[in-house]
C-alpha cells in the first residue's frame, strides 16, 4: 500500500516536471514572437526608453499602418501592401499548378508504369536534394531563352518546376498504397485515365493534397532567393520587400515598423499552419496506414 502510494506521488512529480519543462520551452520559443508583437505596438520613444520585454506604454497601431502602406523599401515608399499582393499572385497559381501536376505525375508513376518510369522517378528524387543555388544559373538561362519578362510569371514557372519533385513524391508515395485492383475495377467499369483520376483518385487524396498545399505555400511564400534573383522592381515578392525595408537606412531605425512588416510577411504561413496543421500531420501519416 505504502509502496504504491509512493509510486503514484513519484509519477505525479515526474509528470509535473515534464509539464514544467514543456512550459519553459514553450515560453522560450514564444519569446521572439512576444518581442516582435510588443515592439510593433510601441512608439519609437517607448522603444528607446523601455526594455526589450516590457509591454507598450501606449498601445499604437501606427507602425502597422506605416509598414502596410508608407514604409520605404529602397527608393519607393508605398509600404508592403503591393508586395503582399505580388506574393499572393505568385503563390496561388504556383501552388495549385504544382499540386495538380504532382498528383498527375504520382498517378502515372504508381499506376500507369511505363518503361523507365522508375528511372524517371529516381531522377525526380535527386531533384529534391538539389539546393536552390545550384539551379539559379541554368534557370536564368532558360528564362532568358523563353523571353519571359513578367516577374510574377517567371516566379510561378520557377516555383512550379522546383516544387514538382516534392509534390510528385508526396502523391506517388500515397498512390502506391492504393490497391491496383481499384484501377482494374474502374477500367472494367469503363472509366478511362482521367475519369478515374478525377472521380476516384483525387477525392481520396485529400490528406495528401493538404500536405502539398501547406508544403508548397510555405516554400513559395517564404522563398527569398528565387524572388531576389528572378524578379525586379515592383514585381518583387514580399520577402524581398521586407529585406529592402529593413535594410533601407534613412534617418532613424524604425524598429516598430520593421517588426510589424516582418509579422505581416510571416502571417500567411502562420495561418496556414494553424488552420491546416492537423491535416498536415494526418496527411504525412496517411501513406503509412493502409485504408
Amino acid at each position: 500500500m505504502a509502496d504504491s502510494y509512493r509510486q503514484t506521488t513519484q509519477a505525479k512529480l515526474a509528470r509535473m516536471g515534464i509539464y514544467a519543462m514543456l512550459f519553459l520551452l514553450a515560453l522560450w520559443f514564444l519569446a521572439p514572437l512576444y518581442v516582435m508583437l510588443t515592439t510593433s505596438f510601441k512608439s519609437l520613444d517607448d522603444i528607446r526608453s523601455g526594455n526589450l520585454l516590457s509591454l507598450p506604454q501606449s498601445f499604437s497601431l501606427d507602425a502597422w499602418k506605416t509598414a502596410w502602406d508608407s514604409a520605404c523599401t529602397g527608393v519607393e515608399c508605398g509600404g508592403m501592401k503591393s508586395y503582399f499582393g505580388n506574393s499572393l499572385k505568385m503563390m496561388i497559381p504556383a501552388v495549385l499548378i504544382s499540386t495538380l501536376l504532382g498528383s498527375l505525375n504520382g498517378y502515372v508513376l504508381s499506376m500507369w508504369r511505363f518503361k523507365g518510369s522508375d528511372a524517371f522517378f529516381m531522377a525526380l528524387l535527386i531533384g529534391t536534394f538539389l539546393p536552390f543555388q545550384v539551379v539559379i544559373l541554368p534557370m536564368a538561362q532558360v528564362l532568358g531563352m523563353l523571353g519571359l519578362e513578367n516577374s510574377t510569371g517567371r516566379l510561378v514557372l520557377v516555383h512550379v518546376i522546383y516544387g514538382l519533385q516534392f509534390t510528385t513524391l508526396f502523391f506517388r508515395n500515397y498512390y502506391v498504397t492504393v490497391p491496383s485492383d481499384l484501377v482494374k475495377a474502374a477500367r472494367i467499369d469503363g472509366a478511362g485515365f482521367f475519369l478515374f483520376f478525377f472521380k476516384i483518385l483525387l477525392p481520396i487524396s485529400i490528406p495528401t493534397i493538404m500536405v502539398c498545399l501547406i508544403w508548397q505555400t510555405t516554400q513559395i511564400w517564404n522563398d527569398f532567393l528565387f524572388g531576389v534573383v528572378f524578379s525586379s522592381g515592383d514585381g518583387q515578392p514580399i520577402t524581398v520587400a521586407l529585406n529592402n525595408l529593413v535594410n533601407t537606412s534613412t534617418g532613424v531605425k524604425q524598429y516598430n515598423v520593421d517588426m510589424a512588416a516582418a509579422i505581416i510577411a510571416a502571417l500567411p504561413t502562420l495561418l496556414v499552419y494553424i488552420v491546416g496543421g492537423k491535416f498536415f500531420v494526418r496527411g504525412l501519416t496517411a501513406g503509412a496506414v493502409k485504408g
Partner: protein
Amino acid sequence: MGALSIRKVKKSYGDTHILKGIDLEIENGQFLILVGPSGCGKSTLLNMIAGLDDITSGEIYIADRLVNNLSPKDRDIAMVFQSYALYPNMTVRRNIAFGLEIRKVPKIEQDEIINRVAKTLQMEHLLDRKPAQLSGGQRQRVAMGRALARNPALFLFDEPLSNLDAKLRVEMRTEIKLLHQRLGTTIVYVTHDQIEAMTLGERIAVMKEGEVRQFGTPQQLYDLPSDLYVAGFIGSPSMNFIPCVLGEADGVGVVTLNNGKDQLISLGQISDIQRPFVGKPVILGIRPEQLTDPASAHSDHPNMQILTAMVTITEPTGPDTLVTVNINGVKTVARCHPRAAGVPGQSVQLSLDPTKALLFDPVSEKRLA
C-alpha cells in the same frame, strides 16, 4: 453456344513464358475454376480474359466473339477482386451506379437495377454507407452486387474469398454457389484453394507453371487425375504415393507392399498401357479413404485386398482417424474408423480397394490407364 473459349493462349515477357499455350472451353452457365499454386499463371489468365493484360498469342472468345483487341469495358464482363476494389469515396449505391453511368444507362433504369441487385444480395440497408463502414463480408457482397448490376455474359472472380476469415469464407462460398444456381450465370473463378475448387466448380482447370495439367469435372479430377501433380493437389489429406514394382500374374497386375514383410496385392486386369511397365518401378496412388479398416471398407468388391501394417501415429479428426503407417519406406495415411484405428506400435489390418488404386509412371509422372 460457347460462353468462353480460350485457344492456344500464350503470355511471355521476353524469354519468360508465363502461359505456355492454354486451351479451355466452357458452355453457357458453367462454373469454371482455375486452380493452382501461386505463380502458376491463373491470375494472369483471368486478367487476359478481362482485357487487363495483353495476349502474346492465341485467341479468346467471349460469347462467340473474338475479344483480343477489345478494351475491358467492351468485353461484356464483370469482375470481383480479392481486395474488393470498392471505390472508397463513394457510397455503395454510387459504387454500383458508377459503371452504369459511364455506360449511359438512364437514371430510372439505374435505380431499378440497384434495387434489384440489393434485393438479390439482401443489402438494401447498406446502400447509403461508404465501404469503410462495412465489414469484410459486406464489402464482398457489395463487390458481387457491382458485378451483378452489369448483367454481363461472363463473371470473373479473382480469389474473392481469400481475405475473409475461415467461417465467413465457407458461408460466402455457399452463397456464391447458390447465386450461380439461381441466376444461371457463367463464371470463371480463380483460387489456390483446392477445397473451394472442388465445392464450387463444375469444370476445374488445374494449372501449374503456365500449363493446364488437367481440365475436367471435380469427380474426374478426383477419381482419375491425369498425373502425379493433380493427384497430389486435389484431395485432403492428399493421395498416398507408394513406390513399387509392377508384376503380372494371369493378366492381373500385382505389386508388393512391404511393412515388415512382403505382401502381394493384386490390382485387377492389367491394361495395354500398363503392360510395358511390368518388371519396372511404378508409383501406386491410393487415397487415404480407400485404405481403411476392413469393417469400414465397402466390401461389396470381391477382390478387396487386406494388408497388415504397424501404426506409427494416429490423428483423430472426429468422424474418423488418420492412421499413418510405413509402406515400402514411405509414410502412408489410412482413414480408419476411430475404434479401429489402433495405437502407435500396434499392428492393424487395412483393406485396400484395388479398383480405386492408380498407377503412375515415375518418370513422366503420367497416370498409367
